[in-house]
């Protein structure tokens, strides 16, 4: 079977600053694929390249066996959905209006919605648990609710692949788990391959099938959480002291930050 995404020798630079260097990896269908790495390691850039928002300077991205350059914007939007980092909202869309926007790749220029679009939007809202908020103003919702609305919008695109850029950032614990569980449900029930950027190594350990560790625009390593999230690799990549043991929940690593006061002053 062809991989869902195949990235070959991908590089990208802004002005003269190189952000990604010779990245190659594949994502198989049904993988929960999580990209982690320190600030400025190129995670978001990689995500935008996969989403078709940026065009790569060199290298190749194949999506479902076809070069991403050969997709029209609409065809790409029917295959890949993207949930960017949350922006402050000023426009009082209702939840339903915002979710319906996800049907645009299937509609004409004026986006005139048919019955089927309304039905798909309704199901997507049910799936992410925001259907009771359909008529509410988006800008009045909590961060976690907004995130679930944006995920519902992305589901409306009926994609094969969903990309999310730090969907759990600035959410409280309950909402973090809820969003991550939702991603797992997407994989299982809708057969959507989920690729996500995260700052949280523990979430990556708990939910990821494959984890890609990025540093300074290069891949440090890629593989199952137990291989990638080792003490040595994480300390080298992030440059801070960590404890890594096995989670009490199961066979995946648990990462604990070590505060400076526990460190031997002679070692630091």
């Amino acid at each position: 079977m062809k991989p869902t995404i195949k990235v070959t020798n991908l590089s990208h630079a802004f002005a003269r600053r190189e952000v990604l260097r010779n990245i190659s990896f594949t994502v198989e269908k049904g993988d929960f694929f999580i990209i982690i790495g320190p600030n400025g390691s190129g995670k978001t850039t990689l995500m935008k390249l996969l989403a078709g928002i940026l065009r790569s300077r060199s290298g190749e991205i194949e999506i479902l066996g076809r070069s991403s350059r050969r997709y029209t914007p609409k065809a790409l939007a029917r295959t890949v959905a993207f949930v960017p980092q949350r922006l402050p909202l000023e426009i009082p869309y209702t939840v339903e209006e915002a979710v319906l926007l996800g049907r645009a790749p299937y509609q004409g220029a004026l986006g005139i919605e048919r019955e089927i679009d309304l039905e798909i939007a309704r199901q997507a809202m049910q799936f992410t648990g925001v259907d009771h908020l359909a008529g509410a103003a988006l800008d009045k919702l909590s961060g976690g609710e907004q995130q679930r609305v944006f995920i519902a919008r992305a589901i409306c695109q009926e994609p094969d692949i969903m990309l999310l850029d730090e969907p759990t950032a600035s959410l409280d614990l309950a909402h973090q788990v809820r969003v991550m569980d939702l991603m797992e449900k997407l994989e299982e029930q809708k057969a959507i391959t989920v690729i996500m950027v995260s700052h949280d190594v523990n979430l990556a350990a708990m939910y990821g099938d494959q984890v890609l560790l990025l540093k300074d625009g290069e891949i440090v390593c890629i593989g199952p959480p137990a291989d990638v999230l080792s003490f040595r690799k994480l300390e080298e990549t992030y440059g801070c002291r960590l404890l890594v043991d096995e989670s009490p929940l199961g066979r995946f690593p648990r990462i604990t930050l070590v505060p400076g006061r526990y460190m031997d002053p002679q070692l630091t």
Partner: protein
Amino acid sequence: MNTKSPRVVTRLIRTSSLFLIILSAVMLAGVSAGSSGGAMRSVLQVILGKSDPNSMLPTIIWQIRLPRVLLAVLVGATLSLGGLVFQALLRNLLAEPYILGISGGSAIGAIIGILMGLSRFPGVSLVAFLGSMATLALILAMTSGQTVMKKESLLLSGVMVNAFCSSVIMFLVSVTQDAKLHNIIFWLMGDLSTADIGQVGLLAGMLLPCFVIIFWHSHAMNLLLMGQEMAQSTGVNLKIVTGTLLVTASFMVSATVSYCGLIGFVGLVMPHLLRLILGPDHRILVPACILGGGSYLVICDLLARTLPPQGEMPAGVVTAIIGAPLFIILLKKSGR
């Protein structure tokens, strides 16, 4: 339920008919008012072609009042729509052609055109368009690299562009003793009194295709309001769509500026009012801005013609008196 036409189509027809009725009523009022009198009833008779053949009223209505009212409709529609487009593209509800300095840039272009002795169409309009494109490029250069332009910095840069434009305009006015410019101050404040039916027709011919282009992109503007990245990921070709909209909006604004000077704040007042009433869907807002903006400027011009005991004042005075305080209120509200 399944046989119903889509909600948005029903809403579009409903709101557009309502605003069309308002516009017709306002236009009738605009045509009826004036120093040479004429009751609504006799005006109606003239319009229906049943008036007294010896009366002066038909000439006054067809050659003086109607062109002026039509011009107000076109200019009001253009400026409201321009405001709506800039607000969607810059994701900033305080953006407006006048506040951004786009109108000021067009005015510099227009004055240079007048000084070069060009005819109003197409010469002056073309130079005005170049002026607006130059300011647009300046604004985009200042805002580039930021995913969301901070409200304050966008407004500040607009204030600076405007200040620069007015000094250039005053400079140009001072260094020429050209008789062509004796009316310039009046013109700068937004004057609708020079309308003649042929030129209004020409202006309409330039503006109507712009309205159609913008309506065609109205759903893309809906998507853009959620942020550029989200719009792109739902299949919007960002470069083409924003390029088309910015150039079209600047073109139509500069066409109206070269005709009747600087009329400010229409593009702020109308989109805000309509968004409050109708919600954020641009497929409804674009036609509503055209019809409602047209009605608004006819009313402002009506006030400008009838309020002063003698003569009249430029319509831009009225729009600014209404618009500027509203702008301050909105700025204060959005800061919370």
